[in-house]
């Protein structure tokens, strides 16, 4: 069984919210829509989102850094929201592992929201059914879309390519390779829910430079500082007078 999922590279996510808005745009007008809002431009706005970017400030000032953490339904392999649903409206697809909600069966009891340890489910305030990320299931199999764009909307919109999409059960897929090579991890694996979505950690490159490496001990010219330094206003010819 394949398991489609997102792999999100926290190293390059800049928290621009492009994934949030493109998700909302695609899904509010698609089969999973609409995603209602209340007071979207006023005080205390509320609304339904499949995907949110949560920004965490790490450390104590001044030694802080910001991590942007996009979070949507993680499409768990053992989703706790599915067994609790009284009508079976929440279900996991056999063929690709996507966890979906059948809006026509959802009675709005919100018990799945209690059961999800990741807080990924949101009740649409007007339609009063539970909604969540569908991995753009209405897009990724749409033959009328060019093949290259048969990906979730958030993946296509990410300017830094922080979001990758693919089958995490296929060891040769790009996402599996990224998880393997770059230490991809799951959110709260201790719950035993086996989230399909993975996160690639922040990777810091540090280089120790010793002082003597900054001095050209074997400079063949040894005359650098003696070279002509023409006045700033002097006429110049590039490559000749500009140093």
């Amino acid at each position, binding site marked *: 069984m394949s398991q489609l999922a997102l792999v999100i590279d926290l190293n390059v996510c800049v928290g621009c919210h492009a994934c949030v808005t493109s998700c909302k745009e695609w899904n509010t007008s698609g089969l999973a829509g609409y995603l*209602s809002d*209340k007071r979207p431009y006023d005080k205390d706005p*509320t609304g339904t989102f499949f995907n*949110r*970017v*949560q*920004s*965490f*400030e790490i450390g104590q000032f001044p030694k802080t850094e910001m991590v942007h*953490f996009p979070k949507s339904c993680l499409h768990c392999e053992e989703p*706790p929201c599915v*067994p*609790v*649903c*009284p*009508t*079976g*409206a929440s279900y996991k697809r056999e063929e690709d592992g996507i966890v979906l909600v059948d809006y*026509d*069966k*959802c*009675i*709005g*009891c*919100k*018990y799945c*929201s*209690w*059961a*999800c*340890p*990741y*807080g990924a*489910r*949101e*009740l649409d*305030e*007007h339609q*009063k*059914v*539970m909604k969540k990320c569908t991995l753009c299931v209405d897009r990724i199999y749409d033959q009328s879309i060019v093949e290259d764009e048969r990906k979730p909307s958030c993946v296509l919109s990410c300017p830094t390519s922080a979001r990758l999409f693919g089958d995490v059960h296929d060891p040769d897929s790009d996402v599996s390779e990224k998880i393997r090579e770059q230490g991809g991890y799951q*959110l*709260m694996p*201790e*719950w035993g829910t086996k989230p399909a979505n993975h996160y690639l950690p922040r990777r810091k490159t540090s280089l120790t430079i010793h002082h003597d490496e900054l001095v050209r001990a074997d400079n063949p010219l040894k005359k650098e500082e003696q070279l002509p330094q023409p006045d700033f206003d002097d006429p110049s010819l590039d490559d000749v007078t500009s140093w």
Partner: protein
Amino acid sequence: MKKLHYQEIEGNSSKFFLLVGILGCIILFALGATYYMEHHGHHVTGMTNQVVWGMPHVFAIFLIICASGALNIASIGTVFGKSMYKPLARLSCLLALALLAGGLAVLVLDLGRPDRLIVAMTYYNFKSIFAWNIYLYTGFFAIVIVYIWTMMDRTVSKYYKIAGTTAFIWRLALTTGTGSIFGFLVARQAYDAAIMAPMFIVMSFSFGLAAFLLVLMFSYQWTERELGDKVVIRLKNLLGVFVAGVMYFVIAKHLTNLYATEHHAVEAFILSDGGMITKLFWIVQLGLGSILPLILLYSPKTANSRNAIISACSLILVGGIAQVYVILIGGQLFPLQLFPGMEVSSSFFDGVVNTYSPTPAEILLGLGGIALSLIIVTFAVKFLKFLPVSLADDVVDPHHS
């Protein structure tokens, strides 16, 4: 011993019509509140995606707990053969049905899509404790109606014992199901404990009996029928034991949690830093809802006073609502733990204690459930023989077999 007679109440006094009028008005207001919430959507309530169950659920779960507890009086007579409780059995069953109906009405009207109740009846996911509860609730209605039938119709009275025993077992299962809604929740820090189910059962004993005593005392007072001290004293002594039982479970639950470091944060929230939740826990649930009633019920000065017993029962019910509120809302206000061991705060509710302020519409819907339960009882005792003509000391048999 005099023979026991059951008779409908006259139900034509001004008090009766006043009661029906008040209850009817509350129900109408509750229906208006439901329409308002249904028409405008979830955002006009205090509920959010962090606090998904609010005040209506508090009332609904409280009423469902009371319902199964109210049946206990009948069970003590039937299952355990205590003859003094047998005259009370019909009212006990009636109150159980009425409270369950009131609770379920609130629960259903607070669903996102109450219009899809038929979906809940036709599609079942048997792994869901919620789906089990649908069977447990409807089964409860069926079994208790049969139970009442075996009491009222002599031709089927041979099934009385078996119906009563089935109802008793079923009610234990029902409250186990209600408690397990929280017991089976692994995602939230405040729940996921096996003690939830037995704690809810003992809560039902206490709240159900308090509700029963109040209904019994007021119905006999208003219809000017005789209610002897023996019945009342016996019931209030039993009630005290149940109140102490609830306290025991509450203490055991919190002590167990306090022992595990993992739960320290959520316990600190409930017990000391939770603001309104902490006040409700210590002042209303424990102080007013448990300790004060115990004093009223057992203190030699007040033990035999009807007013003290009425006060104690009322306080137990108020404390009960507070207890369900603390369990239900308190558990949701405490944030999800996405990064255990870390101090977390983000731009979207992480690590932040959520807020919840119930709106009047939600409270009205909850009160509507209580009013519905009471109006069902009021009409049922008017049209059917639920209440003994007299429960005087010489009518009931205090020396149980």
